């Protein structure tokens, strides 16, 4: 017996180091074993660690209930009545139909559990664990159970206590699944952060219970998966824009093709058909082209508004704006499609009016 105690003490002392790497289930079994050999301090520590395990090592709802039952018994054995009541209430909140095994636990534990049950609302809340959802299309589901038929309001609240979304309002007969799709009341995507699913009795329920208020809280942590978004295109550089007012260079560039081609049309017949008498048609066409060149020159003269260039620049800007709007829309779609990870914490029950 002495050896067992020494080994267990060593185990408990070393546990803080080892426990980090252990799953909730292992810690639970060690805590139960510690209870069975009356090593209550170590047992309480191990069970609290087991209940606090997160992620893949987290306890299932049934294991949580078992851990809370043993924790209640340990706290009774340690004469920590308040802690024992708190553990018992957590157990009732988790599963109001849970029955303590009278063969395993002494009558004092069963008595305290009954006392806690009398003051509990008979409402339980349970989440299935870490859940990844597509906001708007999929939902995070929380199971709300009741041994009576209380009329409650269930809301998702932000860290400042503001209601983000009302999930349910009405009577809970046996059970209700609360579903949250990650959006607020206005249909906007909720930011990452810590939220609380808060279940409180309605005013009518409180009046019928003689004014006694209570609240059931399930903390949830909302995280977002990273989304690859396309960077927005930069505005077109100034070098791509055409001058909207005429300048000398532009005027000359418009003049040359007119005058040069006009002159060529008049002169070339003499070269390609030397000896022939070319008609006046060449002068008509060549002259027209040269005059058009002069007209183009004056339409580009310094200060003259260039409608074509203005239109070109406007189209360049409009195309860029359209691209930006399209990429923003696609990015918003990708953000909306990104998964939201919701990690529920341990539910808690408090009596008194809701703050």
């Amino acid at each position, binding site marked *: 017996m002495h050896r067992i105690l020494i080994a267990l003490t060593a185990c408990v002392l070393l546990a803080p180091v080892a426990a980090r790497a252990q799953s909730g289930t292992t810690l639970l079994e060690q805590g139960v074993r510690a209870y069975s050999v009356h090593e209550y301090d170590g047992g309480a520590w191990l069970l609290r660690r087991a209940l606090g395990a997160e992620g893949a090592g987290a306890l299932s709802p049934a294991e949580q209930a078992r851990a809370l039952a043993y924790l209640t018994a340990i706290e009774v054995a340690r004469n920590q009545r308040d802690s024992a009541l708190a553990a018992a209430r957590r157990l009732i909140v988790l599963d109001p139909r849970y029955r303590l095994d009278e063969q395993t636990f002494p009558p004092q534990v069963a008595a305290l559990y009954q006392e806690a049950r009398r003051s509990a609302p008979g409402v339980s809340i349970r989440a299935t664990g870490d859940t990844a959802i597509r906001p708007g299309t999929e939902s995070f589901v929380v199971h709300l159970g009741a041994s009576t038929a209380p009329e409650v309001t269930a809301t998702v609240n932000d860290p400042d206590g503001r209601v983000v979304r009302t999930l349910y309002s009405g009577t809970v007969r046996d059970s209700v699944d609360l579903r949250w799709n990650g959006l607020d009341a206005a249909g906007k995507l909720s930011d990452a952060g810590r939220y609380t699913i808060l279940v409180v009795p309605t005013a009518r329920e409180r009046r019928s219970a003689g004014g006694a208020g209570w609240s059931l809280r399930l903390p949830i942590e909302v995280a977002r998966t990273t989304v690859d978004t396309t960077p927005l295109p930069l505005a077109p550089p100034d070098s791509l824009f055409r001058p909207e007012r005429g300048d000398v260079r532009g005027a000359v*560039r*418009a003049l*040359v*093709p*007119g005058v*040069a*081609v*006009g002159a*060529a*049309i008049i002169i*070339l*017949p003499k*070269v*390609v*058909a030397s000896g*022939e*008498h*070319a*008609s006046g*048609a*060449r002068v*008509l*066409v*060549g002259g*027209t*082209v040269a005059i*058009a*060149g002069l*007209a*183009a020159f004056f*339409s580009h003269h310094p200060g003259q508004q260039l409608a*074509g*260039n203005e239109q*070109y620049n406007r189209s360049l800007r409009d195309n860029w704006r359209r691209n930006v709007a399209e990429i923003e829309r696609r990015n918003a779609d990708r953000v909306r499609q990104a998964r939201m990870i919701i990690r529920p914490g341990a539910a808690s029950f408090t009596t008194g009016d809701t703050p």
Partner: protein
Amino acid sequence: MILSMYVAMLAQLQTQSPSPLTGTQFTIGGLAAQQTVQSHVDGSNDRLTGLLLGIEGGLSSDRFALRVRYGQGRVNAKPGTNVAARDEVEGEALLGFRATPWLSLWAGPSARAYTTADGDQRWLIWSGRATARGTLIPGRMQSFIEVWGAVSGNVGNPALKAGGRGSNGGLEVRLGDASTLWGRLGYRIESVHADGLRETVESLTLSLLYGLPQ
């Protein structure tokens, strides 16, 4: 009559999209040409004038282009002269390469046939050409000039080796701000020759085109 048919056809095309092919553009249009033919045969000189109607089209990508033209009509000598009128048919098919944005090089055959009461005369010339284009008002008005020289050729009746050269130039104007119709005023002169024969043909041309002229 034929011209009004072309105009109606082009007006119909105006409502359709210019090119279904990505990176490829096409041009199609009709033309009317006032033509003057100066014909020199063994020292005799004949001068005939008349109207030709025709169609033309083009297909171009970033670098390469193809263009075709066909026209037919009748040229007459001055009243009182003892020169027979001629029915005339002419055409060309040229393959082009865009060397720079403003300069294109072309090669291909062009042909002209006259039919008179005395018989037919057919000219076939293979030529190399260079076309320069300049923009007067971007997207609205452009000018062009083309020169060509014969690489080889023949005239069919009698069968003689032929050569020649020519030029073609003018102005192209978009008919409306967002229109796909263009108008072209052009002047073309060609001088082809064979042993004892020389034909100089001048044309003042008005064209109506659907699509950006190439």
